[in-house]
């Protein structure tokens, strides 16, 4: 097997897994499924690409893109605290589409052609961009998986508060948990993870365009999340991401015609999502909740 292909596939698994882990932080542990992490990823990726291309200050561009994405996280977290799960899903869906559409039309983001020749983080004269990015991604995946395992564990106060808010929001608020602080914290964390993935997407592909963050990426992330089971331990999400990437790569190996390979991949992934939503919503390792997280906070 070609080593660059293997590295690219590994990068895809890690990116998909991290985005699904970030989405699960809100979906599985707070009870608000949405597209906030992908929006954060899109904003982070574009901010990094614009700044890195113009200034060549890659570290500064990375920091600023994470800051911009956490700004999105604060807004999305505020929305999550205000409204119920279905309205949060709708708002994040529209926010993601709006961000992509603005990027599709604005001159600074390259319009529909996107931004090409984005400098890769960690690349040098003797270092391959994909190789370095995969190493960074692997480190981030390990760090984020451990942090999320700890944050969402019931052994810790924060995890208990998250699950209390998910399972019974009125009593959690009555007990003194501030829903705004909690939702804003969680949403900011998910957008920061999204921004790291966004930077890695820009670094690996050395390109960012509106197609990089379209709706089908969001549906793929949701598929990974439902396959793993919302609220499960983060390591299962990485396994689910590997399964979905194996499925799509398998389809592209079987159907070699480039015209049909893309549509078959998208159709297969979405078929898996439909079947999972109909038959197996607890996925590989999701907890069986007595109540959903759609309690209206106000």
């Amino acid at each position, binding site marked *: 097997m070609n080593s660059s292909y293997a590295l690219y596939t590994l990068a895809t698994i890690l990116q998909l897994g991290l985005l699904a882990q970030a989405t699960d932080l809100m979906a599985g542990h707070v009870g608000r*499924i949405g597209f906030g992490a992908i929006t954060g990823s899109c904003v982070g990726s574009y901010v990094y690409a614009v700044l890195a291309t113009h200034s060549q200050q890659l570290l500064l561009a990375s920091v600023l893109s994470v800051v911009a994405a956490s700004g999105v996280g604060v807004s999305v977290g505020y*929305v999550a605290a205000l409204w119920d*799960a*279905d*309205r949060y*899903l*709708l*708002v994040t*869906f*529209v*926010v993601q*589409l*709006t961000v992509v*559409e*603005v990027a*599709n*039309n604005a001159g600074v983001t390259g319009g529909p052609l996107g931004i090409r020749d984005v400098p890769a983080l960690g690349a040098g004269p003797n270092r391959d961009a994909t190789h370095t990015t995969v190493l960074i991604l692997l480190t981030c995946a390990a760090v984020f998986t451990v942090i999320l395992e700890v944050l969402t564990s019931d052994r810790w106060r924060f995890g208990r508060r998250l699950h209390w808010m998910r399972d019974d929001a009125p009593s959690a608020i009555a007990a003194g948990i501030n829903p705004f602080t909690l939702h804003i914290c969680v949403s900011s964390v998910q957008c920061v993870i999204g921004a790291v993935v966004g930077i890695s997407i820009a670094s690996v592909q050395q390109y960012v365009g509106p197609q990089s963050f379209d*709706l*089908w990426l969001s*549906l793929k992330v*949701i598929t990974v999340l439902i396959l793993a089971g919302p609220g499960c331990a983060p390591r299962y999400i990485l396994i689910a991401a590997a399964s979905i990437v194996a499925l799509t790569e398998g389809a592209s190996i079987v159907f070699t015609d480039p*015209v*049909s390979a*893309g*549509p*078959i991949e*998208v*159709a297969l992934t*979405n*078929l898996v*999502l*439909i079947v999972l*939503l*109909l*038959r197996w*919503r607890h996925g590989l390792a999701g907890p069986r909740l007595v109540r*959903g997280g*759609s309690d209206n906070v106000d």
Partner: protein
Amino acid sequence: MSPVIITYAISTLAAGLLYATVGCSFYFGSVANRYLNFAVAIPLIAVPHVVAACAAPTRWLIAGPAIIAVAAICAAGLLWLSHRARKASTSDGQLMVMSLAVLAVFENVIRLWRGNESIGFAEATVGASGLSTMTLIALLSVIVVCVALLSRFTPFGLSTRAVAASRDSVALAGISVKGLEAATTFAGCILSGIAGIGWAYEWRVRPDSAFTAALLGVVSYVIGRRLNEDVLSVIGAAVAIAIARCILLVAFQSDWTMTALLIVFLGTTVFAPQQWMRRRIAVE
């Protein structure tokens, strides 16, 4: 009056009526089912592809039966899926995600069947006995007026509005809620198929037109329902979107339609004028 203005006015009118038809299809596809049903856009791309697969002389004869057949199959499939999902206690938001997934599957099936090329009927019918833009406007006007009257004054329209407010009350009044869901979904799919023929005539249909149309329909449906729980407000919102599109096209010379649409959608979703109105009425 300048011919350019007349051309713009006619194209905006046609666009407004097409958007209104799409908006009405989403109203019927979503109102009784209680979730944003993006999959109602499937007949919008399926019907033009079925019609285009037929030979040119018989194309317009097959259009009517094709709309009914595709709408029936699509409505049956969507109802089966939503009933199965409801049994599994799927939330409205998850049903919306599922409808997006269904749309994605179908869009890519069409892409596999007919390729990524666009389908248009205009060049095939110029000078022949096919549609002209004025005929299209007349036909769509009749359809939109009929839908508005149907929704406003018939028991079907009234019970559709009632089921959106309270399913239990409608069931207690002796009306079959499942039957109503089936009827409204079928009506939505029929309207979507009709809009598909108009769309293919006016702008050409590509597989990804389904999502664009779905978004337009959902935006006019959401904005319309925020203003008033009525199909008339959905039609009004759709026509307003068409006028805004025309103004943006003239002002920016590039297509900011979707961006403007999404910003309005976001504003409507976040700020919810319906709630303000209700609050104001309550205060008064």
